[in-house]
């Protein structure tokens, strides 16, 4: 009965027993038809009198209309933040500040399911991820930083930590609620006040967070949330009343911001793009490494700055790894984000889908070999199958430029030195992954990789206590942990 090794052996994952639709109910999500700007503790109409639509990328249906803040609105928000800072927040004890933040954390936990559904509707990410990762991690982030508010005297040896003032914060569309938590929590804990601008395609959970902020009785003006697009962000960055900018987004816009504030006293932290190398050695636990690679690039449709988008496989296990990758992507379900079984949801916007398609085409034109899973795609909405590229060179554009989608490039290597050089051979430096069973090799690799977050035998792990941020053009400054406090204090 024994057969020789057969290259045509194939497993069939599309089985006769398959998963029936398991949609999460939308009824828990209460979304208003129209939202105004949240300034000074209340929802106020925009001076521009303009609103713009936000849609569900899974089916292109309109979810709501949100306000378009113009320069006058930005000014109002910054002034509200300044007044709240001067009169209330700066003077409040850390202990009491912390209690407000604890309240926000607890309320977010209480309303977790509602937030998860709204996040999925607005961003297109699978409900399983917003429910199990985005919302709990956001709540935990508030919980963690609430605890620092009255302990800052221990955080910086021999220095007193003072707040900076008004923080202008601009966040992206890939983790809308989580990014809001990452920005607001440390700012408040250290005594600053905030004007936050969510991304234009994903404003809803930030606006719902404003409701929680009202319910928690946070003093008016401490947190202001203004919706808008690039112009609103620019107005915020350029406003003289803002003392500190926190930006997460593309490297291109990060550079614009750095130029814009040059010559001013504004402090800034930037968390920008990445093109992380994920490295599998021959002695890695291969099935778990493959799982880690899959999570690294297909989690959140690949809309992750620290996505492991460049896979390097030691040549001796290359065929086995590629086979395992191909088998695994066959079991990934691309579909309605609200379905609890969906692994890969909708691409966040039409624009982003076009960008991804553009790079897939470039890859094919460059001579790389493309492989996609064979799953069905929904009719409406923006979707992309998980995609692998082999026969990729270090100089291929798809191996150098950030695609921000479910596209993985695969290259081989032979020695540690070679892969270290190739991993570091990029203007980015946000994250990296290494898979090997040998401990001393892990520490060699992690010591030499030029990235702000290195994952060994795991990937895409986040925790409020763990600092996150990049080297080089992936930005500067850290969010999370003890180190995440630095960005929001002046040390005297």
């Amino acid at each position, binding site marked *: 009965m024994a057969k020789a090794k057969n290259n045509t052996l194939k497993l069939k994952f599309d089985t006769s027993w398959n998963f029936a639709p398991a949609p999460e109910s939308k009824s828990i999500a209460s979304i208003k038809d129209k939202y105004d700007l949240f300034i000074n503790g209340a929802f106020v109409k925009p001076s521009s009198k303009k609103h713009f639509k936000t849609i569900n990328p899974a089916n292109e249906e309109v979810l709501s209309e949100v306000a378009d803040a113009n320069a006058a609105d930005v000014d109002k928000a910054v002034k509200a933040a300044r007044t709240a800072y001067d009169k209330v927040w700066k003077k409040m004890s850390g202990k009491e500040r912390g209690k407000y933040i604890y309240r926000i954390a607890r309320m977010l936990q209480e309303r977790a399911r509602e937030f998860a559904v709204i996040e999925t509707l607005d961003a297109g990410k699978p409900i399983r991820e917003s429910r199990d990762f985005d919302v709990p991690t956001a709540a935990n982030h508030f919980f*963690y930083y609430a*605890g620092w508010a009255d302990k800052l005297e221990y*955080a910086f040896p021999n220095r007193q930590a003072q707040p900076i003032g008004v923080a202008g914060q601009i966040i992206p569309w890939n983790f809308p609620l989580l990014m809001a938590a990452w920005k607001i929590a440390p700012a408040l804990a250290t005594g600053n006040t905030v004007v936050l601008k969510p991304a234009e395609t994903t404003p809803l959970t930030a606006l719902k967070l404003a409701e929680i902020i009202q319910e928690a009785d946070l003093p008016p003006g401490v947190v202001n949330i203004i919706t808008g697009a690039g112009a609103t962000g620019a107005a915020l960055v350029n406003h003289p009343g803002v003392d500190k900018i926190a930006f997460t987004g593309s490297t291109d816009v990060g550079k614009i911001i750095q130029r814009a504030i040059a010559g001013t006293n504004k402090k800034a932290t930037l968390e920008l793009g990445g093109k992380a190398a994920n490295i599998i050695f021959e002695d890695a636990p291969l099935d778990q490494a493959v799982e880690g690679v899959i999570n690294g690039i297909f989690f959140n449709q690949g809309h992750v700055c620290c996505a492991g988008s460049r896979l390097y496989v030691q040549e001796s296990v290359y065929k086995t790894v590629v086979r395992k990758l191909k088998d695994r992507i066959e079991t990934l379900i691309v579909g309605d984000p609200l379905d609890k079984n969906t692994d890969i949801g909708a691409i966040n916007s039409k624009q982003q889908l076009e960008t991804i398609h553009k790079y897939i085409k470039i890859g094919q034109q460059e001579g790389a070999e493309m492989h996609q899973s064979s799953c069905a795609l929904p009719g409406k909405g923006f979707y992309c199958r998980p995609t692998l590229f082999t026969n990729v060179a270090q100089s291929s554009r798809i191996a150098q430029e950030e695609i921000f989608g479910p596209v993985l490039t695969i290259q081989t290597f032979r020695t540690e*030195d070679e892969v*270290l050089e190739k*991993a570091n051979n990029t203007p980015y430096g946000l994250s990296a992954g290494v898979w090997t069973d040998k401990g001393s090799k892990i520490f060699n690799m992690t010591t030499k990789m030029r990235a702000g977050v290195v994952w060994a035998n795991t990937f895409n792990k986040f925790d409020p206590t763990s600092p996150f941020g990049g080297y080089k053009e992936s930005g500067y400054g850290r969010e999370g942990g003890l180190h995440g406090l630095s960005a929001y204090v002046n040390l005297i």
Partner: protein
Amino acid sequence: MFSAVKKYNMAKSVIKKSNIHISENGLENHQPEKRLEVLKTYKIYIGGQFPRTESGRYYIATNSKGKKLANVCLSSRKDVRDAVESARNAFGGWSARAAFNRGQILYRMAEMLEGRKAQFIDELMQQDASRAKAEHEVNLSIDRLIYYAGWCDKYQQIFSAVNPVASSHFNFSVPEPTGVVTIIAPQHDSLLGLVSVIAPVIAGGNTCVIVGSYDKPLSCVTFAEVLNSSDLPGGVVNILTGKASELAPWMADHMDINAMIYCEKDAATQKMLREKGAGNVKRVIVYDKINWYSDAGQSPYFINDLQEIKTTWHPIENIGGGGSKY
């Protein structure tokens, strides 16, 4: 209804004496009966349960004017023995919990204590505190729990180190909980002192057995109810009432206790604890000069006092120099 009144009015002349009086709508009513209060039994707290002392002994807690407040368990060495066993059993699970989880539980304890504020104020007032002082003590106790809830996942960040050893090794030092800690609680400040010594010990992953204030025992027993409703696993905190002078020597001798905390100024007891504790090299810690009402009453160093530092070495391979040029 009217016919009933009519009937009754007719019968009224027959009734000579009655303690029933008729109200305006014609219905009978009695003077309201006085409702008897259900008095609380003050038991001890071991392993998440509320047993009585196995010795059956009790003492009478009174206020300063001699008014009897309650019969309180006079705990014995066997209660200590059982409590230590409970604490030891609970240690593995509690120390293995994620720091964040411990923080959530301590925060929950604060929520529960806040919800029972009135009860605690009442008990403190029974034990001679003024309302203002009682309220202040309870508020501080709640805030202290929140303070330590916030330290659970942060003290590691300030007390750990990555050590730049000269050899090619990754070397890191982390704090780990000591184990089972027995505590003689501050005898005054019966609530705030109790909370102030328990919180840092369990925030750091240890489990404990604590003997509350002898003269003012009510709060420590009621505090056990707060612990019991906070998702705190049974055995992490065990609370006994009784004579510290009777129980302390047994604790000091016990070979399965890792550390002892003593909060009173008695030099002879301090010496005795250190002498007996030497039997298994117990860490004996004395907090006899702490004003629990001040800022000095809370700090991460109270957590650190019950931690051991574990240092680990692991080689860093240094193959060639690839990637070392920035």
